[in-house]
């Protein structure tokens, strides 16, 4: 008979394709002509499609998250600005338009320098950032702007040999000076706090607001160890930042235009 292959080899490369075509044809027939199978098929397809749709909408949500974060950061900056303007209002009698301007930025580079740690942020002179402005992180203080260019700024963090900030455990009654313990990640000492103060491990230290760099009452660090010195009447305090300084991703640069103006005038008189 003609249609019997002579050879032993019976594999044909069209086999699978013909098989699939015929099966698809059969399933199409089954689905289109039988009521129950059509119902099951439609139901399965809609479950499948819904599944895909929910997955893609989740994915789209993630992609939009970046934009959402940006807008939240901007909003945060405005809120910080507002709060600080209100604070200053109680100190200075006559209130100019803007004491305080807050610029939201993103940390794009982290750098270990020779005598301390730096971060680089993606806003510069064009956004109104000046050398000496204070920089806040997501929780607490990061450092001070040490260098600016057109679009970027370099921030000297608190983890730097030359950095120090006056802090207060009780919002303005007593002050101590917070310094970095060189080359210990996220570890600070605080001097000059008298040992009659009722301090405890875990207490928050706030910025004093004496300088015109940082607003007052911003959380800076948490006390991590506490010891009474024998021959002095001061506490020996170790502290850690609330959020690890180098792990911040957003930074808020605070410009006190009003006070900078004042400072330059005072310095000029000298």
């Amino acid at each position, binding site marked *: *008979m003609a249609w019997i292959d002579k050879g032993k080899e*019976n594999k044909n490369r069209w086999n699978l394709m013909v098989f699939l075509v015929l099966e698809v044809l059969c*399933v199409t027939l*089954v*689905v289109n*002509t039988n009521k129950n199978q059509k119902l099951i098929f439609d139901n*399965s397809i809609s479950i499948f499609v819904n599944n895909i749709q929910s997955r893609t909408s989740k994915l789209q949500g993630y992609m939009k998250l970046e934009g959402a974060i940006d807008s939240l950061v901007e909003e945060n900056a405005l809120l910080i600005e507002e709060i600080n303007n209100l604070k200053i209002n109680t100190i200075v009698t006559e209130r100019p338009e803007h004491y305080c301007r807050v610029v939201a930025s993103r940390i794009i580079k982290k750098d270990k320098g020779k005598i301390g740690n730096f971060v680089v942020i993606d806003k510069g002179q064009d956004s109104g950032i000046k050398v000496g402005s204070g920089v806040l992180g997501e929780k607490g203080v990061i450092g001070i702007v040490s260098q600016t260019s057109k679009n970027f700024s370099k921030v000297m963090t608190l983890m730097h040999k030359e950095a120090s900030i006056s802090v207060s455990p009780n919002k303005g009654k007593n002050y101590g000076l917070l310094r970095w313990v060189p080359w210990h990640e996220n570890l600070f000492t605080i001097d000059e706090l008298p040992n009659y103060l009722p301090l405890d491990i875990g207490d928050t230290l706030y910025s004093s607001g004496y300088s015109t760099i940082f607003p007052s009452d911003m959380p800076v660090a948490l006390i991590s160890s506490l010891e009474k010195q024998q021959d002095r009447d001061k506490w020996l305090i170790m502290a850690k930042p609330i959020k690890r300084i180098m792990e911040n991703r957003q930074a808020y640069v605070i410009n006190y235009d009003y006070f900078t103006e004042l400072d330059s005038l005072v310095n000029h008189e000298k």
Partner: protein
Amino acid sequence: MRNRRSYYIILFLLLVFLQLFLFNQIDLFISDIYAPYILVYPLIIMILPVYTNSLIVMGLGFTIGIFIDIVMGTYGVHAGASTFMAFLRWNVLSLMEDKGGYAPKSIPSLTDENWSWVLLYDAILLFLHSIALFTLEIFTFYFFWSIFIKALLTTILSVIAVMAIQFLYKP
């Protein structure tokens, strides 16, 4: 050896006739859910010569399946199952090959092989066929064990019928 072509044509018509007018009319009250069928029409695919071009095997499987479907009003169910079985026929054949291999024009039936070989061969292919058939009929994998039991019962009954037809009408 008689004329093979006329043998296959007569067998085709005989199987369709038997399937539609005899075995489809038998009601087996074993159980509502597991009520098995007696399938004889797959014999036309199983009994084709070993080295038949597999495209022809599949085409014939589809043809007889759609024939049964049109009469029974279950478009695509039997055709899909017998195409599936025809596709796997060569794999089963090469799995069950002896050391000597098949003779050039041998037929996988009682004339060329012993009865136990034919029984196993028919059972495997009929089982594959009924699994595909009931899956297409119920159209969900949710009732897998029901399908499995139904296919098993169908295979047992169908093998008996198919062996009887082969014994009575040899090529």
